[in-house]
């Protein structure tokens, strides 16, 4: 004769197994808003039938233990990083319903960056932001959302505009971005408001199920222990001190299922129209250099010079060419903050075998674009290795008989060709001539794929070939 109308959700575990705790009840304090919120979420998961594909990305804070309660997939993110983790989970498993559950210390303080960018990208995730204006778990410290005048352990005289600044309104902040589809703020203060919260929770989850875009629900939530008031009073406290600072409203309700943020009309000059990728000409399969053909083993090359000499680019070009020959390649750059004039070098490994470490302490070859590079790396060249020096800037080379030393006036050669900027390509050409490590055509094919203009391509080819001739001449001299 009775039917059950409201009871414990099936999406909760039967027992809350956790260390040292009662396995029948949550660890939340009497009257805590977290319990109410988690019941609302569990109920929605039940009703939508998404328990087997729901993934909770948890925060750091009281609600970190949510994974003991909700029987769904879960990942515990580093403090504040839940939206970044959720982004990865959702992109890897688009069929999953991924939701973040974060407090105000987690989301608005340490995770302020992550939430802004996830929202701005309009990630197809759902974020529940539980705002109680305080760091509850650690004992009631001031949070970014603490109202002015509130006394906390870290604002003992009350938060002031002058010292701590005013509270941050996250909904309003996110509503300045085009990415989010749905933003609403609700409060857990009484039965009526709790039902509004219930509606918002369901909408935010349904949005994701229907692919409508990024959904964000802020919940003003009581923290009786942190505020040191009884539960009933805590609910009134939310109404009296939080709601006036954080107005309850829907800030955004759009459908982004077409993955285009509303408000930007590209055709009317609201953005730069996407250009179609240029067709990629079919490249002839290159013959491959000496590494690909197996005549030399692994090549460990260091290129070094001043920033602006094209050191990193020459290495990158070689790496791209080697990839087209099916080689394993690593390229790691090292450079200062200066765009010009600082020092720059890169380590490049080319191998037929998987590469264990990209770092090179004993290069088989060094391409030195300037004098400091000699001092820094020439002593480390393996016996039998190659030192290719830019004679235009390197005046002294080490007195080593166990390595091959070749000097090329690459700046003068490049200048004669009409482009001093091609110095790096001249050096690269000389290197290709001396080692044969990679086929020149593989590198040029990479340039074509990357969209290098025909004139520039031709200029690079001339520079590489001039470098090759110079290497031959230098060897004969």
């Amino acid at each position, binding site marked *: 004769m009775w039917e059950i*109308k*409201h009871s414990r*959700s099936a999406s909760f575990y039967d027992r809350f197994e956790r260390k040292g705790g009662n396995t029948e009840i*949550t660890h939340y304090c*009497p009257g805590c808003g977290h319990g*109410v919120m988690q*019941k609302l979420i*569990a109920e929605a998961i039940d009703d939508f039938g998404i328990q087997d594909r729901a993934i909770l990305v948890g925060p750091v804070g009281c609600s970190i233990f949510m994974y003991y309660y909700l029987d769904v997939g879960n990942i515990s993110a580093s403090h504040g990083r839940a939206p970044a983790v959720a982004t990865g989970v959702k992109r890897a498993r688009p069929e999953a319903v991924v939701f973040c559950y974060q407090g105000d210390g987690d989301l608005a303080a340490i995770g302020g960056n992550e939430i802004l960018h996830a929202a701005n990208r309009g990630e197809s995730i759902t974020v529940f932001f539980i705002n109680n204006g305080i760091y509850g778990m650690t004992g009631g410290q001031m949070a970014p959302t603490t109202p002015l005048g509130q006394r906390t352990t870290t604002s003992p005289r009350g938060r002031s505009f002058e010292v701590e600044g005013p509270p941050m309104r996250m909904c309003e902040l996110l509503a300045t971005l085009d990415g989010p589809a749905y933003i609403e703020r609700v409060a857990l203060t009484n*039965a009526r408001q709790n039902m509004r919260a219930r509606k918002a929770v369901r909408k935010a989850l349904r949005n994701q199920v229907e692919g409508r875009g990024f959904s964000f629900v802020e919940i003003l939530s009581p923290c009786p222990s942190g505020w040191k008031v009884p539960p009933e009073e805590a609910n009134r406290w939310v109404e009296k001190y939080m709601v006036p600072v954080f107005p309850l409203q829907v800030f955004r309700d759009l459908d982004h299922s077409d993955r285009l943020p509303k408000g930007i009309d590209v055709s009317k000059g609201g953005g730069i129209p996407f250009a179609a990728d240029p067709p990629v000409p079919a490249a002839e399969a290159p013959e491959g250099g000496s590494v690909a053909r197996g005549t030399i083993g692994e090549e460990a090359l260091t290129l070094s010079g001043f920033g602006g000499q094209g050191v990193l680019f020459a290495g990158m070009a070689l790496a791209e060419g080697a990839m087209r020959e099916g080689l394993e390649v690593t390229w790691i750059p090292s450079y200062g903050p200066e765009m010009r004039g600082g020092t720059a070098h890169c380590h490049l490994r080319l191998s037929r075998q998987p590469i264990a470490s990209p770092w090179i302490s004993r290069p088989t070859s060094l391409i030195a674009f300037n004098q400091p590079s000699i001092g820094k790396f020439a002593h480390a060249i393996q016996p039998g290795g190659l030192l290719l020096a830019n004679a235009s800037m390197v005046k002294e080379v080490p007195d080593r008989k166990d390595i091959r030393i070749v000097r090329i006036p690459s700046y003068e050669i490049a200048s004669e060709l009409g482009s001093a900027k091609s110095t790096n390509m001249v050096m690269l050409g000389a290197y290709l001539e001396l080692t044969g490590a990679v086929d020149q055509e593989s590198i040029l094919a990479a340039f074509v794929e990357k969209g290098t203009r025909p004139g520039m391509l031709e200029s690079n080819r001339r520079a590489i070939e001039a470098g090759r001739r110079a290497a031959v001449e230098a060897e004969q001299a």
Partner: protein
Amino acid sequence: MADRGDVIIAHHLCKGCRLCIVSCPAKVLEQGTALNQQGYCAALYRGSGCTGCGICFYVCPEPGAITVRVRKLGEGKPAA
């Protein structure tokens, strides 16, 4: 006339926060005086007057503390 609803409070799961008591429109809940095993004075149903509205369930922070039942349709009417 029989009550439309019924509320079952799991004594051992209640933390005595009183939110259900102050929210109940029919005022049929009260706080007990005996401590439960957690050391809280759990809420109690007076035994009659529940309308089955479910408000106590939605204000209660504890997942399993409150269950609300309603009489099946067509029942509960006085016998003709």
